[in-house]
């Protein structure tokens, strides 16, 4: 597209190819430098991006990454993220079209966090780090410009959330008492990876006074209990971000991630009679579940908030000071989106 005459920032906005913020004009030179940094051919097809199934070649990804403000050496992370969201298990079709609010959250593991200065510490969900700000933004621009997920047109989210501008963090592996998210999913500690979750906005959990793993996990459970709404059940992949201080409390009691998951999973059950539509809220168990019980209004069978303990994904991240955790709800009902990991190459 040739844009003559006027301010390039205005021209690009007028073309409808931005996220509303100014973009870096994708000149041939800038895009060529970005493509070169990947060591791949410009025409190599990385994925077809739902819902329009536009072709995300290395060059198309590079154009969007340049516009987002990426440095050329960020490109391999953006490419891995595009691969991950286009995996069928992620269901980008649903993520982009739903009236619910998910945005793809990128969680980076491995040494590349240091090479690219990806923030894993204080303020990691917020502004101030070019890598976090622009890698997540590049993925968003690919979803809109190549995938066709134009907000209010094809992407019909009622609210969306600010993570649809950019949503990229690193795990603070150095402050974690446990294996990283990537290692738990079969990668080596030295591998560079992205993990993609169709995620709601983070909910901060304040707990300054718990000194034991069960006390702290009881607080976390109460926040997990209200994901979507307090009677939603059978939910899937959801991210729990423990601050280093909170992680130290849990690990200090000798608990591993599996112990946390088991505790939370078991605690997050409610009897059928509390989940009937019309009891404490009009929503509740869907009809196909209610039909399994002869007298739901008096049935005490426990129903789980999460389908399996393994759906509770745990990372350690955030500033050294602060007794907070964050719950990042997934958009992960049965047969919906799942966490997808990819190696960065």
């Amino acid at each position: 597209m040739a844009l003559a005459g006027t301010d390039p920032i205005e021209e690009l906005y007028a073309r409808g190819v931005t996220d509303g913020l100014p973009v870096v004009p994708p000149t041939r030179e800038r895009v060529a430098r970005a493509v070169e940094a990947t060591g791949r051919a410009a025409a190599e097809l990385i994925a077809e991006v739902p819902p329009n199934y536009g072709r995300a070649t290395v060059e198309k990804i590079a154009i969007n990454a340049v516009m987002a403000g990426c440095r050329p050496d960020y490109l391999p992370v953006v490419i891995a993220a595009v691969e991950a969201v286009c995996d069928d298990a992620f269901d980008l079709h649903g993520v982009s079209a739903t009236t619910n609010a998910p945005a793809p959250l990128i969680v980076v593991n491995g040494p590349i966090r240091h090479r690219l200065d990806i923030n894993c510490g204080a303020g990691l969900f917020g502004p101030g780090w070019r890598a976090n700000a622009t890698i997540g933004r590049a993925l968003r621009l690919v979803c809109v410009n190549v995938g066709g997920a134009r907000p209010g047109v094809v992407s019909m989210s009622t609210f969306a959330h600010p993570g649809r501008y950019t949503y990229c963090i690193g795990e603070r592996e150095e402050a974690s008492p446990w294996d990283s998210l990537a290692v738990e999913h079969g990668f080596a500690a030295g591998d560079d990876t992205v993990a993609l979750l169709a995620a709601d906005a983070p909910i901060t959990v304040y707990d300054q006074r718990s000194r034991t793993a069960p006390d702290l996990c009881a607080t976390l459970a109460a926040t997990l209990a209200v994901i979507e709404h307090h009677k939603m059940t059978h939910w899937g992949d959801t991210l729990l971000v423990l601050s280093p201080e909170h992680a130290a409390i849990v690990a200090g009691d000798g608990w591993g991630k599996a112990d946390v998951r088991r505790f939370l999973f078991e605690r997050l059950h409610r009897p059928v009679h509390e989940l009937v539509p019309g009891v404490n809220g009009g929503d509740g168990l869907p009809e196909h579940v209610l039909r399994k019980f002869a007298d739901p209004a008096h049935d005490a069978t426990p129903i789980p908030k999460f389908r399996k303990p393994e759906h509770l994904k745990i990372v350690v991240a955030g500033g050294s000071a602060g007794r907070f955790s964050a719950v990042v709800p997934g958009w992960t009902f049965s047969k919906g989106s799942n966490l997808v990991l990819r190696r960065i190459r």
Partner: protein
Amino acid sequence: MHDGVFFEDHGIPTATVISSEFVRAAAAQAQALGAGDYKTVVVAHPIQPLTREEVRALADKAFDDIVARLTRR
């Protein structure tokens, strides 16, 4: 929309029933898939809070449109 466009392209007349809030999204998606003239059958939004009887009433209202969409009528 992907399913409807697929079936039409494979020779099966298709009536896709959607709620009124999604008319624009459906048209944009059909356009992007190369089926700019794809027509849907529209019922009133919202659906989710309705009772079974209320949803059945929507079917009664939409039935003529569905038949018209599938035939030369």
